[in-house]
């Protein structure tokens, strides 16, 4: 399987008043047309990885990598123009909360159409309108014409996130980064959104990076999982082998999941070990000395 995305030794540090603060420290992975989960606690650098791939980090971030390529194309060396061409068309991202990630003063349909329009794809007028309605139907919105004209505040969270997915998929990208796409939503609509994502991604043969702090969700949804601790991948593992993970942090995460057979009162709290910062990491069950 030809790799879509190659990441080798990605490092990100933020310049602050007291010097540089590392956020991502030597992350490597590659991705084909598959579903990859990135899991870790808050602040572990998940979003930073996603944003580094799309070159969305602010100027205060210093991003380096031995290799950061998409279909062989070096992402760090792209000109602004090439970058614009890539975004939206080849790599896109769905963000956490549709209440903030949609422009509040533009009709939703216009925002979706814009993705096509900026890339000069999808024609104009009725043709463009039809395409937007089609994609709205594809994300299972029942009255696409009303939603087209609606403003974001007139939509529920689930509807907003569908619109967001529509906006990001309308130009047929090959890689989608979904940064906690359901954590701002009602529990009742989470599954629906995920199954829409799953359906579209598999049907179009795209690559997907699903970022989440919910190990359960990722385990059930992805093919492969990266477990991130303090900006470092401490374990990479097939999702179906997750129960056999070896890093103490992964095991801790697993143990802190609520289970049906276990009373909730006994949930383990994670004990952290400073040695994890530079200690051994595991790939598919093997210890890798780094």
């Amino acid at each position, binding site marked *: 399987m030809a790799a879509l995305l190659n990441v080798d030794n990605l490092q990100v540090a933020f310049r602050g008043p007291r010097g540089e603060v590392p956020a991502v420290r030597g992350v490597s992975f590659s991705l084909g047309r598959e579903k990859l989960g990135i899991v870790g606690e808050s602040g572990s650098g998940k979003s930073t990885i996603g944003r580094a791939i799309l070159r969305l980090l602010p100027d205060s971030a210093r991003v380096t990598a031995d290799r950061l390529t998409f279909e062989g194309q070096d992402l760090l060396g792209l000109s602004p123009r090439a970058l614009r061409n890539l975004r939206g*068309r080849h790599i896109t991202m769905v963000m956490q909360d549709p209440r903030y990630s949609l422009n509040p003063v*533009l009709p939703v349909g216009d925002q979706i159409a*814009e993705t096509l329009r*900026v890339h000069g794809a999808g024609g104009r007028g009725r043709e463009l309108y039809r395409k937007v309605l089609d994609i709205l139907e594809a994300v299972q919105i029942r009255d696409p014409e009303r939603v087209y004209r609606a403003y974001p505040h007139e939509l529920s969270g689930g509807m907003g996130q569908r619109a967001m997915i529509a*906006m990001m998929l309308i130009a047929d990208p090959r890689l989608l980064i979904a940064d906690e796409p359901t954590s701002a939503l009602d529990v009742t609509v989470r599954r629906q959104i995920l199954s829409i994502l799953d359906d579209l991604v598999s049907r179009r043969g795209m690559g997907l990076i699903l970022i989440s702090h919910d190990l359960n969700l990722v385990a059930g949804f992805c093919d492969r999982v990266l477990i991130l601790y303090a900006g470092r991948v401490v374990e990479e593992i097939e999702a179906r082998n997750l129960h056999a993970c070896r890093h103490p942090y992964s095991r801790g995460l697993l143990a802190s999941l609520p289970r049906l057979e276990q009373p909730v009162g006994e949930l383990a709290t994670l004990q952290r070990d400073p040695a994890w910062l530079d200690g051994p990491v595991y790939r598919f069950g093997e210890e890798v000395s780094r």
Partner: protein
Amino acid sequence: MTERSLAAPPRLLGTRLTRRIRSLGGLLASLALTFLGLLCITFLIGRIIPIDPALAIVGDRAPAHVYERVREELGLNLPLWQQFFIYVGQVLRGDFGTSVLTGRPVLEDIARVFPATLELATLGILIGVIFGVPMGVVAAVHRDRWPDQLVRVIGLVGYSVPIFWLGLVGLLVFYAKLGWVGGSGRLDFFHEGIAPSVTGMILIDAAIAGEWDVFRNALHHIVLPAALLGYFSLAYISRMTRSLMLEQLNQEYITTARVKGVSEARVIWVHALRNILVPLITVVALSYASLLEGSVLTETVFAWPGLGRYLTNALLAADMAAVLGATIVVGLVFVGVNLLSDLLYRLVDPRAR
């Protein structure tokens, strides 16, 4: 727009409409209250004045019974609250008293001079918006770099310079030394009275009459004072635009637009700017109203026959009826502009509809 509201379910539309009317009612009530407060202040100012209005009319050699009769006619022997009610009634009827200086009803005077101020302030705000908004946007985009510092300094200087002084310097340089602009007044003497007064605003009147010589001359005269006022509103507008923009540029929807591949220019000038349009209306309205204040001094410097000069002339002649009348009108314009900006706000912001 109508299409959109038609698309909404009718019941929703109904509740929305009543909510809108109710909040509009609340707004009007609070504005009315503010206006009443304005009148209260002007009324009290009229009472603390050391000049006895009755004495001013009869003179100090009049016999006591004449003085008393005049006092009674003026209602000065009534309790203060009653006098206030009479005063409010008079103002509501448009009776601001008679100017000692011109011998005409104050309202008539104000109606005559107001268009000149309106013309000047409108041109000023146009200049302020046309330059101030882009400057604020550029400053926000280049935050903490030199364009930001430059805009900041231009703004701070605008906050720091006495407007009357800058007017004098402007006259000295651009009129006396360089001859680029016309001097004081609205027109040169030989252009006066050619275009018939329709709106009272000479640029418009001249355009209506097709008197382009007059138009050009009027433009020559108005450009310097309007640029000055424009500079002062620019200082405020650019600064507010900058902080509003900074807030928007950190929002997640900006990232969304970038993810879609939208060009940086479009991100800034379409996505972000659209979102500050609504608060910007309030900013512009506020600075438009405060141009009235700037016009008091500017008009004095440029011998511009508007409300500001009317007010200062009245002040210097201790013509209290004219002073208070002009003050009320300015306050009224303030209140009116606030109302207008609120209405516009509702019109532009989809969330307020």
